[in-house]
């Protein structure tokens, strides 16, 4: 294989689930923020307890929005706390209407969207996982001990401190690290903490809620995992935009990818 050569990189299951996730992730984040708005605080405890508050978004007085992170309060009027109410005005509201589904405050419908698309994301994820495991393509994505010494050389290449990327397989060591973290940590944590919030499931499986530190703590981890996934999404999108966007987009639509110098295959 050399740069310029076209390879069939993404199976149809990968491409389909990728775009379903794009949709599901957008809906789950925006409906999740809608749900968060109904109780805009996160406590590191089982029950609601202001003494263990990690994050609180509030409107302490008319026209003012504040965000308190671990006891430090910032004025965030217009962005958080006192924001766009989704109906053309402004109101005391944690996350603004332009980022929530529905735009206006509606917990019932936010939950409807969230619980429906949670199923879509989970079913799609399991189907992809089974298909990728059966085809053996999953192992291309998982970080191995032998990849670890190549992490810095790859980063150095991206920072233009190094002329060539270290030789690697279909995914480079940084991609593998990111995918592994998402697959092994973030995806299970966001699914399990979401499930742990259900009083019905808690009644069936107390240990699930317990391992996350209790119900409010599970809510906190659910939020943290969302922030981390948004971080992954931003880096991922930045990489796609800067590493040959049309080639990347074409590959995720048709499956065919043109090898690039950064793929570590030589000129």
């Amino acid at each position: 294989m050399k740069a310029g050569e076209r390879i069939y990189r993404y199976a149809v299951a990968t491409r389909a689930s990728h775009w379903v996730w794009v949709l599901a992730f957008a809906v789950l984040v925006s409906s999740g923020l809608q749900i968060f708005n109904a109780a805009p605080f996160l406590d590191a405890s089982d029950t609601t307890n202001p003494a263990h508050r990690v994050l609180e978004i509030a409107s302490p007085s008319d026209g003012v929005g504040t965000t308190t992170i671990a006891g430090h309060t910032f004025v965030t009027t217009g962005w958080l706390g006192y924001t766009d109410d989704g109906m053309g005005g402004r109101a005391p509201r944690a996350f603004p209407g332009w980022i929530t589904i529905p735009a206006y405050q509606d917990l019932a419908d936010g939950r409807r969207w969230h619980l429906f698309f949670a199923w879509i994301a989970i079913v799609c994820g399991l189907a992809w996982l089974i298909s990728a495991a059966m085809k053996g393509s999953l192992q291309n994505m998982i970080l191995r001990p032998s990849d670890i010494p190549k992490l810095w050389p790859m980063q150095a290449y991206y920072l233009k401190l190094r002329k060539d990327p270290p030789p690697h397989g279909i995914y480079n060591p940084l991609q593998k690290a990111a995918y592994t973290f998402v697959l092994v940590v973030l995806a299970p944590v966001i699914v399990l903490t979401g499930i742990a919030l259900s009083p019905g499931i808690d009644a069936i499986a107390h240990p699930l809620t317990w391992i996350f530190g209790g119900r409010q703590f599970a809510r906190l981890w659910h939020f943290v995992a969302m922030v981390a996934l948004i971080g992954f999404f931003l880096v991922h999108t930045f990489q796609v935009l800067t590493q040959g966007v049309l080639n990347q987009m074409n590959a995720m639509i048709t499956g065919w990818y043109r090898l690039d110098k950064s793929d570590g295959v030589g000129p």
Partner: protein
Amino acid sequence: MKRRLFVASTVSSALAACAPIGTALNGNSGFHNLLGSAQALNHALIDTHGMAKEYTERDISSEFPIDSLPTPSDANYTALLKSGFRDYKLIVDGAVQRRGVFPLAMLERMCNETQITRHDCVEGWSVVAKWSGIRLSAILDLVGPRSDARSVVFHCLDKDDQGTPYYESLDLHQARHPQTILAMRMNNRPLPPDHGGPVRLKVPTQLGYKSAKWIGRIEVVGSFANIYAGGGGYWEDQGYEWYAGI
């Protein structure tokens, strides 16, 4: 560079369009019902199979938010409150073999069930409190649901500012769950008026809106489709899930 800019602006406008498109789709009743279909799956999978975690006295929260419709202030409730609920009677009727009328003193004599459980509000907060009362199943055994009975509807004494009364419902399986109780005491004291006194429902395996306050009458029915807007509860009629285990 122009290509990148083009793709970047396409991606960001697609994201920015997400909320308005979602809001528009939300108004489509077919789509709205499709979204609601997840409820049937969740109900089938989770139901009320488990037993809610029981806490200890030490875990009882110092504050329990009063987050419901306003405490009733009509003449009937005010008179009941003045008499210390001496004249309160719980009526149980509908698809039953024997209509039941339970004065508060009688309910108090039957009070034999205590639980310290967590109350999870649909909004997201959780608190722990101690509740004492009667298993709903004990009341159902006394009245004997008929063979056509499917659900238990709780008619409450509180109304919203439009005059719409609060109500809730459970299926017989949920109603007979050993932790589903009619509570008359909270944290070792008679149930305070703001927390639903004299009698409220506690369903610790589901979200808080199921645990209706100020119960006046329990109606056993074959179907709740013709009661109020047919959703099976005050909040259900406004779009919340009837199955509130998630």
